[in-house]
């Protein structure tokens, strides 16, 4: 029945743009590698074994963040870095996995089948990272004060994608200061859904 639901055009545009972005070269991973990360995330959520075409540390990171994010710990990340997954690749991986799970969840909630992963766009990673990022109170280096709006700022393209995705799905960072904002849900209804999602995920945020 939910297949008959009409989806807002801005939301469709957001999903299509984000889906295409997954297949493009990022800052430190190629398009093919980003899609392999996405596939590994899906395998973990379906409790299927690893595809084993990524470095072991990347497989570990993608699988845990996709299926058991609340189990992430500082020492776990430090072990991954010691195992050869540098912070820049890790932050890009967080972006890929988190948006993949978000889009899969949205479709599942509306009774739609998972979207097949796209074909990778050829090309080399850009190498564009924020050299001024520093590791302070968060686990990964960030630009400026550690906070959720800066969480992926070590890899600026990933932070940009997060912010673009966030607006149509929930609220833009500016709209978040407006308690009267409403679309299909009122702001209190949106916050109820958001908070319950975080509780089920055992996430403080």
């Amino acid at each position, binding site marked *: *029945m*939910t297949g008959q*639901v*009409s989806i*807002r055009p801005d*939301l469709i545009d957001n999903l299509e743009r984000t889906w295409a972005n997954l297949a493009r070269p990022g800052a430190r991973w190629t398009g093919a590698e980003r899609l392999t990360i996405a596939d590994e995330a899906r395998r973990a959520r379906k409790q299927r074994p690893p595809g084993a075409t990524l470095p072991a540390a990347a497989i570990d990171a993608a699988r*845990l*963040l996709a299926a*058991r*994010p*609340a*189990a*992430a*710990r*500082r*020492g*776990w990340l430090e*072990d991954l870095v010691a195992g050869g997954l540098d912070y820049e690749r890790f*932050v890009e991986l*967080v972006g890929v996995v*988190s*948006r993949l*799970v*978000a889009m899969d*969840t*949205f479709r*599942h*909630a*509306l*009774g739609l089948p998972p979207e097949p992963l796209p074909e990778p766009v050829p090309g080399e990673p850009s190498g564009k990272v924020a050299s001024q990022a520093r590791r302070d109170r*968060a686990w*990964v280096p*960030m630009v400026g004060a*550690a906070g*959720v709006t800066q*969480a992926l700022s070590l890899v600026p393209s990933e932070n940009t994608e*997060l912010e673009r995705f966030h607006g149509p799905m*929930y609220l833009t960072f500016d709209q978040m200061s407006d*308690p*009267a904002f409403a*679309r*299909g*849900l*009122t702001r*209190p*209804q*949106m*916050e*109820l*859904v*958001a*908070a*319950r*999602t*975080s509780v*089920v*995920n055992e*996430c*403080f*945020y």
Partner: protein
Amino acid sequence: MTHTPLEVRAVADPTIDPLTPGGVALLAFVDAVLSGGDVASTAAAVRAELGAAGLVDAAAVIGNFQMMNRVADGTGIPVGRGSRIRNAALIDQLGLDRFDHTDEENTHP
């Protein structure tokens, strides 16, 4: 400010009525989507109470926080002291401290 009532304890205990319109249906929908429940029937209940646009927005908000939870958990965003002080009562009321892993060091999740 809006004056729509919201019983925040319902966030941690879905047996409590959240008071906001459609709140009970929304909580059941979130739980079904994230915990392998009956998505079709809970989605139908949301749609019946809040319309198709409400259902789509609920699905989108769940998706967005699936992303944000992973970003926060993966990057170890610290919970600021000011935020803790401002929201102390709410954190205590909902028992949220059990979810703050940012200062834990253990390496074997």
